[in-house]
Protein backbone atom coordinates (compact mmCIF):
# COMPACT_ATOMS: atom_id res chain seq x y z
CA UNK A 1 0.00 0.00 0.00
CA UNK A 2 1.32 3.40 -0.99
CA UNK A 3 -0.55 6.51 0.12
CA UNK A 4 0.74 9.87 -1.11
CA UNK A 5 -1.05 13.16 -0.50
CA UNK A 6 -0.27 16.79 -1.21
CA UNK A 7 -2.67 19.13 0.51
CA UNK A 8 -3.05 22.68 1.76
CA UNK A 9 -5.25 21.65 4.70
CA UNK A 10 -3.59 20.66 7.96
CA UNK A 11 -3.51 16.97 8.90
CA UNK A 12 -3.75 14.83 12.01
CA UNK A 13 -0.63 12.66 12.19
CA UNK A 14 -2.24 10.52 14.91
CA UNK A 15 -5.12 9.70 12.54
CA UNK A 16 -2.66 8.92 9.72
CA UNK A 17 -0.76 6.58 12.04
CA UNK A 18 -4.01 4.88 13.10
CA UNK A 19 -4.97 4.38 9.43
CA UNK A 20 -1.64 2.72 8.65
CA UNK A 21 -2.10 0.37 11.61
CA UNK A 22 -5.16 -1.04 9.86
CA UNK A 23 -2.81 -2.48 7.22
CA UNK A 24 -1.95 -4.96 9.95
CA UNK A 25 1.75 -5.72 10.45
CA UNK A 26 4.46 -6.06 13.05
CA UNK A 27 6.17 -2.68 13.05
CA UNK A 28 5.36 0.90 12.12
CA UNK A 29 7.78 3.84 12.17
CA UNK A 30 6.61 7.39 11.59
CA UNK A 31 8.05 10.88 11.31
CA UNK A 32 6.22 14.20 11.56
CA UNK A 33 7.80 17.59 10.83
CA UNK A 34 6.34 20.83 12.21
CA UNK A 35 6.89 24.53 11.56
CA UNK A 36 9.49 25.77 14.05
CA UNK A 37 9.77 29.29 15.43
CA UNK A 38 13.52 29.55 14.75
CA UNK A 39 14.90 33.08 14.82
CA UNK A 40 11.49 34.68 15.00
CA UNK A 41 9.84 32.72 12.19
CA UNK A 42 6.07 33.23 12.39
CA UNK A 43 4.94 31.18 9.39
CA UNK A 44 6.19 29.37 6.33
CA UNK A 45 4.88 29.00 2.81
CA UNK A 46 5.51 26.01 0.60
CA UNK A 47 5.48 26.37 -3.16
CA UNK A 48 5.57 23.24 -5.32
CA UNK A 49 5.56 22.03 -8.92
CA UNK A 50 2.06 20.60 -9.28
CA UNK A 51 2.76 18.59 -12.44
CA UNK A 52 5.68 16.82 -10.77
CA UNK A 53 5.14 16.68 -7.00
CA UNK A 54 2.90 13.68 -6.65
CA UNK A 55 4.92 11.56 -9.07
CA UNK A 56 8.16 12.43 -7.24
CA UNK A 57 6.70 11.52 -3.83
CA UNK A 58 5.28 8.32 -5.27
CA UNK A 59 8.73 7.50 -6.70
CA UNK A 60 10.30 7.95 -3.24
CA UNK A 61 7.69 5.64 -1.67
CA UNK A 62 8.09 3.07 -4.47
CA UNK A 63 11.86 3.13 -4.04
CA UNK A 64 11.39 2.48 -0.31
CA UNK A 65 9.13 -0.47 -1.09
CA UNK A 66 11.71 -1.91 -3.48
CA UNK A 67 14.47 -1.62 -0.86
CA UNK A 68 12.59 -2.96 2.14
CA UNK A 69 9.79 -5.41 2.64
CA UNK A 70 7.00 -2.93 3.40
CA UNK A 71 3.29 -3.51 3.71
CA UNK A 72 2.69 0.23 3.64
CA UNK A 73 4.38 3.56 2.92
CA UNK A 74 2.69 6.89 3.56
CA UNK A 75 3.77 10.42 2.63
CA UNK A 76 1.63 13.47 3.34
CA UNK A 77 3.10 16.88 2.48
CA UNK A 78 1.42 20.22 2.85
CA UNK A 79 1.61 23.19 0.52
CA UNK A 80 0.70 26.84 0.97
CA UNK A 81 1.06 28.96 4.09
CA UNK A 82 1.15 27.52 7.60
CA UNK A 83 1.81 28.90 11.07
CA UNK A 84 4.39 27.95 13.68
CA UNK A 85 3.48 24.66 15.34
CA UNK A 86 1.48 23.30 12.42
CA UNK A 87 2.49 19.97 10.87
CA UNK A 88 4.22 20.18 7.48
CA UNK A 89 5.07 16.62 6.56
CA UNK A 90 4.25 13.09 7.72
CA UNK A 91 5.92 9.91 6.54
CA UNK A 92 5.46 6.38 7.84
CA UNK A 93 6.46 2.85 6.92
CA UNK A 94 4.90 -0.45 7.97
CA UNK A 95 6.80 -3.74 7.86
CA UNK A 96 6.92 -7.10 9.57
CA UNK A 97 10.27 -6.11 11.08
CA UNK A 98 11.43 -3.15 13.12
CA UNK A 99 14.73 -2.59 11.34
CA UNK A 100 12.98 -2.30 7.99
CA UNK A 101 10.25 0.03 9.25
CA UNK A 102 12.80 2.33 10.93
CA UNK A 103 15.13 2.43 7.92
CA UNK A 104 12.32 2.98 5.43
CA UNK A 105 10.83 5.81 7.52
CA UNK A 106 14.18 7.64 7.68
CA UNK A 107 14.70 7.03 3.95
CA UNK A 108 11.28 8.50 3.07
CA UNK A 109 11.94 11.80 4.81
CA UNK A 110 15.64 12.05 3.88
CA UNK A 111 14.99 11.36 0.21
CA UNK A 112 11.89 13.53 -0.01
CA UNK A 113 13.98 16.48 1.22
CA UNK A 114 16.21 16.37 -1.86
CA UNK A 115 13.96 14.78 -4.50
CA UNK A 116 10.56 16.43 -4.19
CA UNK A 117 9.91 19.82 -5.82
CA UNK A 118 8.98 21.95 -2.80
CA UNK A 119 10.40 25.36 -1.90
CA UNK A 120 10.03 26.88 1.53
CA UNK A 121 9.67 30.56 2.29
CA UNK A 122 9.97 31.77 5.86
CA UNK A 123 7.95 34.67 7.20
CA UNK A 124 8.97 36.85 10.11
CA UNK A 125 5.89 39.01 10.35
CA UNK A 126 5.78 40.75 6.93
CA UNK A 127 9.36 39.88 6.02
CA UNK A 128 9.67 36.87 3.72
CA UNK A 129 12.74 35.04 2.52
CA UNK A 130 13.43 31.80 0.70
CA UNK A 131 15.06 29.08 2.74
CA UNK A 132 18.46 27.94 1.43
CA UNK A 133 18.96 24.24 0.77
CA UNK A 134 21.25 22.58 3.32
CA UNK A 135 24.34 20.64 2.27
CA UNK A 136 23.66 18.36 5.26
CA UNK A 137 20.38 17.28 3.64
CA UNK A 138 22.24 16.26 0.47
CA UNK A 139 24.76 14.38 2.59
CA UNK A 140 22.08 12.50 4.57
CA UNK A 141 20.25 11.55 1.40
CA UNK A 142 23.51 10.43 -0.25
CA UNK A 143 24.01 7.99 2.63
CA UNK A 144 21.18 5.95 1.11
CA UNK A 145 22.85 5.66 -2.32
Amino acid sequence: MIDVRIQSESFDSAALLAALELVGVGAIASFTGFVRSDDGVTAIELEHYPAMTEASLRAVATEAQSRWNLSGAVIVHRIGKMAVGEPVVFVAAASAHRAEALAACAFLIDRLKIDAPFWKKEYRGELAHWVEAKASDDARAADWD
Partner: protein
Amino acid sequence: MPLQIVYFARVREAVGIDGEQVEVEACNNIADLIDRLAAQSELYAAAFSDRSKLRFALDQKMVRADAMLDDAKELAIFPPVTGG
Protein backbone atom coordinates in the same frame (compact mmCIF):
# COMPACT_ATOMS: atom_id res chain seq x y z
CA MET B 1 10.54 23.29 -31.70
CA PRO B 2 8.43 24.86 -28.95
CA LEU B 3 9.41 24.31 -25.31
CA GLN B 4 7.36 25.42 -22.33
CA ILE B 5 9.56 26.82 -19.55
CA VAL B 6 8.19 27.01 -16.00
CA TYR B 7 9.89 28.85 -13.13
CA PHE B 8 9.57 28.26 -9.41
CA ALA B 9 10.36 29.96 -6.11
CA ARG B 10 13.25 32.46 -6.14
CA VAL B 11 13.83 31.95 -9.87
CA ARG B 12 10.16 32.64 -10.61
CA GLU B 13 10.30 35.85 -8.58
CA ALA B 14 13.57 36.89 -10.23
CA VAL B 15 12.35 36.49 -13.83
CA GLY B 16 8.96 37.90 -12.84
CA ILE B 17 6.81 35.33 -14.68
CA ASP B 18 5.52 31.80 -13.96
CA GLY B 19 6.61 30.52 -17.36
CA GLU B 20 6.96 31.18 -21.06
CA GLN B 21 7.18 29.38 -24.35
CA VAL B 22 10.46 29.46 -26.33
CA GLU B 23 11.70 27.98 -29.59
CA VAL B 24 14.61 25.58 -29.17
CA GLU B 25 16.73 23.05 -31.06
CA ALA B 26 16.58 19.42 -29.90
CA CYS B 27 20.38 19.25 -30.06
CA ASN B 28 20.78 22.01 -27.46
CA ASN B 29 21.28 21.21 -23.81
CA ILE B 30 19.84 23.08 -20.87
CA ALA B 31 23.04 25.03 -20.20
CA ASP B 32 22.95 26.36 -23.81
CA LEU B 33 19.39 27.54 -23.32
CA ILE B 34 20.20 29.20 -19.98
CA ASP B 35 23.09 31.07 -21.68
CA ARG B 36 20.73 32.26 -24.41
CA LEU B 37 18.09 33.41 -21.90
CA ALA B 38 20.69 35.13 -19.70
CA ALA B 39 21.92 37.06 -22.75
CA GLN B 40 18.50 38.48 -23.58
CA SER B 41 18.15 40.91 -20.66
CA GLU B 42 19.59 42.16 -17.37
CA LEU B 43 16.65 40.57 -15.59
CA TYR B 44 17.42 37.07 -16.88
CA ALA B 45 21.15 37.59 -16.43
CA ALA B 46 20.51 38.37 -12.76
CA ALA B 47 18.04 35.51 -12.28
CA PHE B 48 20.54 33.01 -13.70
CA SER B 49 23.72 34.62 -12.37
CA ASP B 50 24.59 31.85 -9.92
CA ARG B 51 24.35 28.69 -12.01
CA SER B 52 25.31 26.55 -8.99
CA LYS B 53 21.95 27.49 -7.46
CA LEU B 54 19.86 26.35 -10.44
CA ARG B 55 18.20 22.97 -10.73
CA PHE B 56 16.20 21.55 -13.66
CA ALA B 57 13.46 19.12 -14.54
CA LEU B 58 12.72 18.03 -18.12
CA ASP B 59 9.18 16.76 -18.53
CA GLN B 60 8.97 16.49 -14.72
CA LYS B 61 12.17 14.48 -14.25
CA MET B 62 15.12 16.01 -12.41
CA VAL B 63 18.10 16.35 -14.78
CA ARG B 64 21.46 18.11 -14.85
CA ALA B 65 22.34 21.19 -16.88
CA ASP B 66 24.07 19.06 -19.52
CA ALA B 67 20.85 17.19 -20.37
CA MET B 68 19.83 17.50 -24.04
CA LEU B 69 16.46 19.10 -24.68
CA ASP B 70 15.59 16.39 -27.26
CA ASP B 71 11.84 16.49 -27.77
CA ALA B 72 10.94 17.52 -24.21
CA LYS B 73 7.72 19.49 -23.83
CA GLU B 74 8.43 21.23 -20.51
CA LEU B 75 11.56 22.53 -18.79
CA ALA B 76 11.34 23.60 -15.13
CA ILE B 77 14.01 25.90 -13.72
CA PHE B 78 14.19 26.34 -9.94
CA PRO B 79 16.50 26.62 -6.92
CA PRO B 80 17.57 23.53 -4.93
CA VAL B 81 14.45 22.07 -3.30
CA THR B 82 13.72 22.73 0.39
CA GLY B 83 10.65 20.69 1.26
CA GLY B 84 10.07 18.37 4.20
